[in-house]
């Protein structure tokens, strides 16, 4: 094998490896939407993203919130326990105010 061919093989192998590495590494999207358990959590960093519904294609796009402060839940939280029918005495009332 000529010297030129050997160098060609070395270069091709390196290029293939680099290409494979680039394909295999995790991809980070530019619009990172952080989530957390609540408003008091010190969540991740959300730069250039106004809160949007995760996965929603219809959420308004806006890019004004530069947050290194607590990030907030990006979806409305469903209750951990459904309200149940009550037959007990009423302790308080919800209604318009």
């Amino acid at each position, binding site marked *: 094998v000529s010297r030129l061919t050997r160098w060609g093989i070395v270069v091709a192998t390196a290029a293939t490896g680099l290409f494979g590495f680039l394909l295999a590494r995790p991809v980070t999207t530019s619009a990172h939407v952080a989530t957390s358990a609540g408003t008091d959590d010190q969540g991740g960093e959300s730069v250039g993203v106004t809160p949007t519904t995760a996965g929603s294609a219809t959420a308004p796009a806006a890019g004004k919130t530069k947050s290194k402060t607590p990030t907030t839940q*990006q979806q409305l939280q469903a209750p951990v326990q459904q309200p*149940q*029918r009550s037959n007990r*005495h*009423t302790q308080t009332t919800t209604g318009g105010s």
Partner: protein
Amino acid sequence: VSPVDLGSTFDALGTTAVVLVAEPGRQDDARAAVEVEIDLIDRTCSRFRSDSELVALNAAAGTPFPASPMLAEAVGEALRAAALTDGRVDPTLGRAMQDLGYDRDFRSVPPVGPPIEISLRRRGRWTEIDVDAEAGTITLPEGVELDLGATAKALCADRSAGAAFAATGLGVLVGLGGDLAVAGPPPDDGWSVRVADDHAAGPDAPGESVLLSAGGLATSSTTVRRWARGSDELHHVIDPDSGRPAAVWWRTASVAAGTCLDANIASTAAILLGPDAPDWLAERGLPARLVRPDGSVVLVAGWPDDGGATP
């Protein structure tokens, strides 16, 4: 032990505050913790206090305003509410509220008045609000005034419940004008809550009672905080498209969620969504009770049926 023994009721934020504790003996500690939170949110977010931080922020529209952590949190949550409702729960309707005559504590708003003119404004200006957490500033676009009324009270309820639980170690329920937040272990199988048109209604008011064990429960209504200008009957849930009170598809919308804030965002959105509200709530797994103007009820996402007891 009666409910009265377990808590207290007092005026706050232009409405009624309720603090309930799961066991007797720590009511004063719970109330003290709640009053700290109420005072903080009032000084920060009131539209009707000339010395509030929100009034200063609105006056500084167009320039970066150094915001306290509380104001930054409240504005951040208001923007989140707008994002999660496709702009329906819009915090930039402060001027629309003023135009409609709701420019002071509601108890001081004249119930009737001369006709008013509504000027249409561009929708979606909340997307132009710049919250720079690194710099600690908020910049409103010129011509925009924030009204945090749709979110700040519920945020305060959540914070207050957390603070009262931390102070007492006991389960607590905090209600601010019908926005209810629960923290800590509830009594028995939950807090028994009457769901009515008006939060000030008594336990026998038309409606139904549910047990709430965690999170929050909120009701938005088009039947309270009503006033008239000319021949127009007005209420306080404003449609951002028209700048006018939303069409009354639902008399009340009550929603349970993981927090009181999320419950209130969803209940306000439900009023604005009209006929689309049941599907919108169900898609998000939010149990809800929607009441039409004729009194008929639509239950969503597992809200318990009262067995036909609802009048």
